């Protein structure tokens, strides 16, 4: 596995240093941790996201105006330490509290929860919204057990917009929870990633095989099949989402076609072409579409499709402008 790195032990530190070297006018590193925050956060509820590294531009790329105010990141595929989360929290709190928004993984939950307890000792109120959009990772009855994948993007967008509206922590949490509850994703993997520290592939898969529902750390999916055409694959993936969330004619959705790392924009557009076609045939209207690689898995090849069903409230916050070096939305509506 060829990677452009120095010492595998330093990949995360050096990544953060490189990010700050590029965007230091607007961002700063939290001293002695791998936390990144925006400079000059206004006095309001803060939104903090985070998780393991290896999913770039998530999570640091979602720190920005109308988005998260800070990200606490861990080693590759490993949750950030409670200390990192706590320091980011302390830097950002201006007395109105801090909302944690991140994907539902046991390591992340343990570390963020521990940080929340430590923050409480410093008189900082926190609330948590867990993103659990991956329909392949557990049954509908056990949805609380599901992993968070690219749906993080929508949840962070909505959280940032709600916080910017000077709402209370309870309100920001309620609206962000609604965004998470209205979001479903499914992914497919074509090839594995390799972790810098082990230098090994995370799983094995034949050249002509794909795994439907595979997670962003190589967690097993629901089905391994022969490679299909983009259209067949897209239709199969969307079926899992339609089976899980009720979508009726005239419903409005936001679409995210997300590349997992090494799948090209060309392929993502081909997938999106079919997504648009299928949704149109069902009479579901597409309010907005993103085709990009936001939630990646190092060099894994593959794609995930995410739908967020809108209501008036979610639309109001989705319409707010957002801006970071890796995510941009013009205000609309």
């Amino acid at each position, binding site marked *: 596995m060829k990677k452009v790195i120095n010492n595998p032990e330093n990949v995360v530190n050096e990544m953060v240093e490189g990010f700050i070297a590029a965007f230091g006018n607007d961002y700063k590193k939290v001293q002695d941790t791998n936390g990144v925050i925006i400079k000059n956060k206004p006095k309001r509820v803060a939104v903090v996201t985070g998780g*393991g590294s290896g999913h770039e531009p998530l999570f640091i790329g979602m720190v920005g105006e109308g988005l998260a105010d800070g990200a606490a990141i*861990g*080693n*590759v*595929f*490993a*949750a*950030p*330490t*409670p*200390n*990192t989360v706590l320091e980011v929290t302390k830097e950002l709190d201006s007395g109105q509290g801090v909302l944690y928004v991140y994907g539902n993984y*046991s*390591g992340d939950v*343990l*570390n963020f*929860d*521990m940080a929340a307890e430590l923050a409480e000792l410093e008189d900082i109120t926190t609330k948590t919204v867990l993103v659990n959009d991956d329909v392949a*990772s557990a049954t509908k009855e056990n949805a609380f*057990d599901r*992993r968070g994948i690219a749906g993080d993007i929508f949840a962070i967008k909505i959280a940032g917009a709600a916080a910017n509206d000077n709402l209370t922590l309870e309100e920001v949490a309620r609206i962000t929870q609604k965004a998470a509850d209205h979001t479903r994703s499914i992914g497919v993997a074509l090839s594995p990633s390799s*972790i810098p*520290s*082990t230098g*090994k592939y*995370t799983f094995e898969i034949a050249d002509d095989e794909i795994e439907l529902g595979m*997670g962003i*750390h*190589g*967690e*097993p999916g629901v089905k391994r099949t022969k490679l299909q055409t983009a259209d067949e694959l897209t239709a199969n993936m969307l079926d899992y989402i339609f089976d899980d969330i009720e979508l009726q004619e005239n419903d409005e959705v936001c679409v995210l076609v997300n590349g997992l790392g090494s799948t090209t924009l060309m392929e993502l557009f081909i997938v999106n072409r079919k997504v648009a076609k299928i949704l149109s045939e069902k009479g579901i209207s597409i309010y907005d579409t993103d085709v990009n690689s936001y939630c990646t898995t190092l060099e894994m090849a593959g794609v995930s499709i995410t739908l967020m069903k809108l209501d008036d409230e979610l639309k109001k916050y989705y319409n707010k402008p957002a801006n970071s070096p890796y995510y941009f939305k013009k205000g609309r509506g």
Partner: protein
Amino acid sequence: MMVAETDGVQTYLSTKQVKDLYIYVGQKVIEAKPTLTEIDSAIGDGDHGIGMEVGFKKAIQQLNEIEVEDINTIYKEIGKAMISNMGGASGVLFGTFFVASVKNKPVIDKLTLATFTHLVQSGLEGVQARGKAKVGDKTMIDALAPAVEALNAAVEQNKDLVKALQVASEQAELGLEQTKQLVAKFGRAKSLGERAIGHQDAGATTISIIFKSIFDYVCNLKTNGELLYE
């Protein structure tokens, strides 16, 4: 002076010996990094060994740097080093084990069997309160709980420290063996379902290594006549 090796004779480790003990334990876990990586790669994401190395390296460095006056400090420093540096689930869980062991405890300057048992019992309770895992969930608890149970039984039976540690170490290893038959309820292995069967849990492996190396170290102290008697 030779003391008869019988149950009921109170032996203990001094604060200095406990510090050396955990430096030894840390080295043994670090040495096991390739094994832990291999085990974790089978059903997790392969970083357990790397995390444990980071945690124990920092803990050893810290123990060597500071003036250790009581056993509470030793546990607290190991726990804090893990929580602040490892990340992942194992950082919080192993860190919590050490911190919870001595949380709200009066100053401890000698480690008898009863004290050690009391500490690991508190550590186990702390880990369970945080991680919510029970025996049978294919986690570190599967090795830790039987070891604690063995220690409690040994205290009841007034057993000798070395013998008690031997049984605890054996029970931890047995518990570890049994994780091979289990479906995981936590962590990355959870999504494997039945496919996790046949593979042992990485966290339980580390617990087993910790107990084995505690036993080896204390056994060695006894052989060298360095165990202290009341």
